[in-house]
């Protein structure tokens, strides 16, 4: 610092470095300073009006009582009201319109599908798998093979009333011996592979006639109308396509009862009726029918 000030009249602060580098005191214009002080005054009002000061376990809430969360909630409420109203309309239509019209209406169908996922997960996915991919011994809903028909109203009936599969053990009369069961099993496997007319399975073909399998599965291995019997000519197996498993199915049938009790080794195929199980069943069954129809194989 300078011991003496060689420039006493220029209004410097007396801070001088390197002989002549000095700090001047040039105040800003008056209005500028006024604006600067006005800023301080403004802060006081701002601090009083808005929540500003943190206490130890709470905070000063401000005269306005404004909070960010409150503002967010208000905005959210607007959106929610709009959504609720829109959904209420869709629900109304879903309840009022027949399935056929719902499925032809893009918007309504999309709404039904999108609002079904949770419901399907809660009531259907335990057996049919998330997304309808099926489970061992439980039908796949995403394919195009339908036991009881793949039209949306047929699906609806299945949900409403449930379905119980049934197939007699050892043919319709129950009179096929073990050898005949094996022969017809080979024939059925050949049918699935498109070799039903192969001479090697002609014995099985005869058993198929004798056992009256055609009554349900149709003369060509294909049911004439959806009746719960599987289509034997396609590549989808209701239970399993392994030879041992096919033999087991034919031997013990599906849901075969003796004295009111299921016999040992018989296949189980029960879909419960959902008319009583589902909440708001009248709308929710429609919703689910549309959803299942959309999974990939609806007709």
């Amino acid at each position, binding site marked *: 610092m300078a011991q003496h000030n060689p420039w006493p009249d220029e209004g410097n602060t007396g801070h*001088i470095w390197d002989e002549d580098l000095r700090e001047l005191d040039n105040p800003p214009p008056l209005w500028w300073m006024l604006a600067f002080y006005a800023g301080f005054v403004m802060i006081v009002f701002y601090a009083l009006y808005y929540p500003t000061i943190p206490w130890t376990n709470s905070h000063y809430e401000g005269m306005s009582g404004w909070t960010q969360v409150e503002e967010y909630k208000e905005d959210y409420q607007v959106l929610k009201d709009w959504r609720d109203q829109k959904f209420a309309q869709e629900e109304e239509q879903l309840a009022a319109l027949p399935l056929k019209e719902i499925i032809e209406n893009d918007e309504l169908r999309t709404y039904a599908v999108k609002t079904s996922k949770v419901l399907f997960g809660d009531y259907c996915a335990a057996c049919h*798998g998330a*997304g309808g991919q099926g489970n061992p011994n439980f039908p796949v809903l995403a*394919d195009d093979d339908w036991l009881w028909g793949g039209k949306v109203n047929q699906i609806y009936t299945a949900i409403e009333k449930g379905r119980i599969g049934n197939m007699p053990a050892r043919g319709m009369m129950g009179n096929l011996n073990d050898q005949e069961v094996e022969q017809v099993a080979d024939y059925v496997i050949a049918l699935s592979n498109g070799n039903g007319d192969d001479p090697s399975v002609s014995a099985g073909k005869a058993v198929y006639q004798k056992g009256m399998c055609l009554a349900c599965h149709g003369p060509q291995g294909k049911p004439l109308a959806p009746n719960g019997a599987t289509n034997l000519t396609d*590549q989808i197996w209701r239970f399993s396509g392994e030879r041992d498993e096919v033999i087991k199915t034919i031997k013990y049938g599906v849901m075969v009862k003796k004295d009111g009790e299921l016999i040992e080794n018989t296949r189980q195929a029960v879909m419960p009726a959902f008319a009583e199980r589902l909440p708001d069943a009248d709308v929710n069954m429609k919703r689910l029918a549309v959803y299942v129809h959309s999974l990939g194989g609806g007709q």
Partner: protein
Amino acid sequence: MSDHNQDPNYDATHKSQLEGVDTSNKNLQNIGVELLSVHTDGTVHAKRMSGRFRTIKWIVAALWLSFFIGPYLQWDGRQAILFDLVNRQFHIFGLTILPQDIWVLAMMLLFAALALAATTAVAGRLWCGYACFQTVWMDVFTWLEEKFEGSPKKRERLEEQPWNWEKLRKKLPKWAAWSVIGFMTGFSFVAYFDPALDLWARLFSFEWTTTETVIILGLSAATVFFAGFLREQVCIGFCPYARIQGAMIDTETVVPTYDVDRGEPRGRMRRPKPGEEAPELGDCIDCNLCVAVCPTGVDIRKGQQFGCITCGLCIDACDSVMEKIKKPKGLIRYASLAEFAGKPFKPFYKRPRVLVYSSIMSLAAIAMIWGLMTMSPIDVKVLHERAPLFVQMSDGSIQNKYYAKVVNKSDRLLEAKITVDGPESMVYIVDEQINVVPGTVGTATLLVRIPKEDIEQTNTPIDIKVQDLNNPQVYETYESMFISP
């Protein structure tokens, strides 16, 4: 630190570190360490005179008229340039930019920022001197001031007068004219966000919202305050760019510079008295016209300084004087410090700073152009169903399910068709037509089947194409996978 001069050993032992160093800065050497002053006492009332740079300034300023005209241009039944914040859509003529494409705007900003840096590296504060809205509005405002209140001398006298009716009567029309420009500035700005014609209509029925009113009136007031009252103080005291420029110019940058070698020692020309020797004077006659015309009130003869916005008006002034005294023009001219140091002129393409700036600029421009060229009015994403990944169908084929999400970025209903390209035996099922409302996402469910025997790998690539039915050259292709056991 102090009293070196009293130290008899000082000169021998201490030498300035600057000695023997070529700073390539003759201006500064001549000026020494004198502080460069800025105008602090009262309003600058700059003299206006015609000249080359004055003309350039008017031409550049006229470009700003497009700011006021912009909101009234129409395109396809709507405002041509509309930044629709509520609906999150930016309309620029035929182009609609949704939030997905906002990176293109970021590229525009990058380009603009680098253009600022590059032009500054080449020729100083071109933006400040000619194009900046503060400079242009201030120029127009002071032009109006001269129309209403007369020459700078008269204005200074008026300023000194005490406030009375007479003074108010002279000031009021000027303020009114300023306010009109101010209001139009605020209004036009908001009209890029709110349709202009609607905004006018609602002005006259007093139906502006609080937000609109506050922003428009606030901007109007700010315009008058900044361009009319603060003026050059904004450039000197507010604008950060003025301070950054020191880092953005170098010794190769050409800026308006006073030729010290030619001009000094400055002095008034006068006839020598008999018996007296004529003093050796430089070309500067110390007329101070360069200071009088300066809109920020600086003295360019003190060298490059942060108060100088490099508008070139002092060049016009000095040239007019040089013409009168029959000396070559260019005592003040666009020149670089290197030129005064006698170094050869370096072309732009040999200056790394310019090269780097312009290559980043080109990259931004290429990205921007690429973005705009490939910006499709539709955007397609295809999601593969995961539960199940694939389904065995009854005819032995494998089926995969996809959800095609189609974003409609245009402003009309999109009617699109979805097609799939894959193995020959592939079949697919999808709605014949998907309709998507503007600015929303439409979903189409797509089922693709391939016979098992034709599948060679677990992942088969397929291409899903979404094509606008009304405008077949608009399509997007999404590469997806067909998954099988």
